[in-house]
């Protein structure tokens, strides 16, 4: 028998490569000499007998989340569409349609978005009236485009089943105020109400993502 190329044939090196002999991914130039070594090495054969069932058990043993893939992708796709539609200001963008979602869901979502928009407008109106001097030049009407918030801000999209009470609760819990939106794909902008708080937009977005009613949340660059 002839061997081409490098043939270290040392026990230690063969031993190190046994896992890749087991998974079939050992380099072609190593396979032959390692297999030859194993045939003559009782210790390596025993190791193979030990590792082979371990490899099988590892593949067979771990639970998976088979049921959530579709939902997870829908969430990602919504995020992508929201992000891409949020970039050009004042652009009239159609509501998000994620593959696999029903039109009825979109209608429900739109209804929720209208309600949330009304809340946002009311909040802005009241705030502007109460603090018109302080905020002059900072806030515009929502339809005129997005306001540049003073403090940390996030863009977010609520899920279709989010109620007005849910929105209020989420904003209150995170001490946020709606300062813009909804824009294309239902993206709202919310800013930290108390700008003296030392919390980053990234942190707020991370916290918001943990909420089941928040489909998408990303920090706004200041």
């Amino acid at each position, binding site marked *: 028998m002839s061997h081409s190329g490098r043939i270290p044939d040392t026990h230690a090196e063969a031993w190190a490569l046994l896992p890749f002999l087991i998974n079939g991914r050992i380099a072609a130039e190593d396979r032959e000499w390692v297999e030859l070594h194993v045939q003559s090495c009782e210790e390596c054969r025993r190791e193979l007998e030990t590792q082979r069932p371990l490899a099988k058990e590892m593949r067979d*043993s771990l639970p998976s989340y088979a049921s959530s893939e579709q939902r997870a992708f829908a969430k990602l796709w919504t995020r992508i569409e929201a992000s891409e539609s949020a970039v050009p200001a004042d652009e009239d963008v159609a509501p998000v349609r994620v593959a696999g979602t029903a039109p009825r869901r979109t209608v429900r979502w739109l209804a929720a978005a209208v309600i949330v928009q009304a809340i946002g407008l009311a909040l802005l109106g009241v705030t502007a009236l109460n603090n018109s001097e302080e905020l002059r030049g900072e806030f515009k009407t929502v339809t005129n485009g997005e306001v540049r918030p003073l403090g940390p801000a996030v863009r977010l999209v609520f899920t279709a089943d989010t109620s007005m009470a849910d929105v209020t609760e989420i904003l209150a819990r995170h001490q946020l105020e709606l300062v813009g939106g909804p824009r294309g794909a239902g993206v709202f902008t919310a800013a930290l109400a108390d700008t003296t708080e030392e919390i980053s937009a990234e942190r707020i977005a991370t916290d918001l993502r943990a909420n089941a009613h928040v489909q998408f949340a990303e920090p706004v660059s200041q």
Partner: protein
Amino acid sequence: MALKSIDTAPAPLRSALTDQQERELLARIAEKREQAAFRELYGIYYQRLTRLLSRMSMRREDIEEIINDTFWVVWTKASEFRGASQLSTWIIGIAYRRALNTLRRERLRPVGSEPISEDMISTPSSAQGEERSQWIQQGLDKLPLEQRLALELTYTMGHSCEEIATILSCPVNTVKTRLFRARETLKNVLPALAGGSGDFT
């Protein structure tokens, strides 16, 4: 001399597509912004990444977020992939780094803790399978994160030593060392494994 006498384990959890086919999907994403191609690639990696991240003891909500963050990068950077490595090592490497960042940020203990929750679907179909699964998991939980991942990438995901080195951003010899230590530790904490009987219960 016949060299086929050494059996290898059943095929690991690998993509049904070749690297070239996966690259073609990526090209459709980069050039045509094609949702169908993106969805297909996502489906190919979803379970694999879920398993890998579960082995890192990530929480369910973190797993989904990391996978989606990873594919956010795939979507936005598809045109920047130059093909220096396999597509799988690029994608899995992104997920690995994101997971490390999450672990650091949340200060989660990478070992043990409360990884998986209510809506998981358990693969083992029998009580005995369930018991073996727990037994293996307990042993793996004793390993440092890097050793556990090296073992997972080898045995479950079927990567080569060089691919694992790329994913984990470490030298090839480091991969071998981690595997060596993992195997030794497991033999100590799972004595039945060292017996080589395959009867773990």
